[in-house]
């Protein structure tokens, strides 16, 4: 799965996610990706999220909107991501990762899986990582 979130100079937010799904999935299986609120969500007033991971788990907790609910209650993108990924792990044993932005341009790339290649560009600087702690 691949995904991206962005904030433009007008302060507008957007998200996009695309995937081939999971190996050996049943024909016709559809995961979280095309499900609004699960496979991505963007609202100028709150933030934007693009997730990846175990699709059935992401759908069961409606991961993207779950993160934005935390942000609506004052959590930072990083705090909200960690809370929701932890909830998904504990409630449905699902692993995953997310990239998140808020309307101010504060961003986070967080994951509960072993790895997730990510990159962020802001103020002419490129931040990136694959492993935890990068």
């Amino acid at each position: 799965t691949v995904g991206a979130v962005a904030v433009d100079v007008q302060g507008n937010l957007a998200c996009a996610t695309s995937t081939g799904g999971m190996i050996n999935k049943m024909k016709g299986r559809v995961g979280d990706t095309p499900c609004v609120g699960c496979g991505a969500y963007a609202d100028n007033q709150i933030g934007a999220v693009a997730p990846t991971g175990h699709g059935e788990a992401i759908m069961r907790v409606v991961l993207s909107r779950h993160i934005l609910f935390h942000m609506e209650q004052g959590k930072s993108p990083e705090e909200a991501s960690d809370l929701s990924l932890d909830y998904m792990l504990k409630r449905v044993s699902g692993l995953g990762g997310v990239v998140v932005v808020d309307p101010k341009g504060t961003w986070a790339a967080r994951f509960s899986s072993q790895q997730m290649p990510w990159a962020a560009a802001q103020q002419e600087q490129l931040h990136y990582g694959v492993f935890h702690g990068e």
Partner: protein
Amino acid sequence: MLPVVVAHGGAGHIPKDRAESASAGVREATRKGYAILKSGGSAVDAVIEAVTILENNPRFNAGRGSVLNVKGEVEMDALVMDGRTLACGAVAAVRRVANPIQLARLVMDKTSHVCLAADGASQFASTMGIPEVAEESLITDYAIKRWKDNLPPDADPVEAQMGKMG
């Protein structure tokens, strides 16, 4: 306002020999998306550009390089959402399209629906002038290898996926 693009290439375990190229691919996509923002482009344009680049990179499970279903076929899903209007467009289980994310954007921009699936998505792509591509052009040797590695008919596809690329 500080424009920003953040992109990912999938969660899970990445073999050592693919980690650096995966990171390079995500960095390239992010740079291209950010260039759009710097030139005054919209957030929607930026995320579509970043994801299109990742779909075209065979290192990632999307577009060319997608994993295979139990029948050895490529069925892809994609979603885009505009935070300004809450407009969104999606495609599900679509086949023989090079860039599902661009088809999803057309669903958002050109229809009153949110999601089109399977044959309906393919028919819509044809109507929009998006060329059908050969399925083989989306399938990589790596995808075939992983498909064969996971092929046992009694394997639970959910269990098989856990801990691997999402």
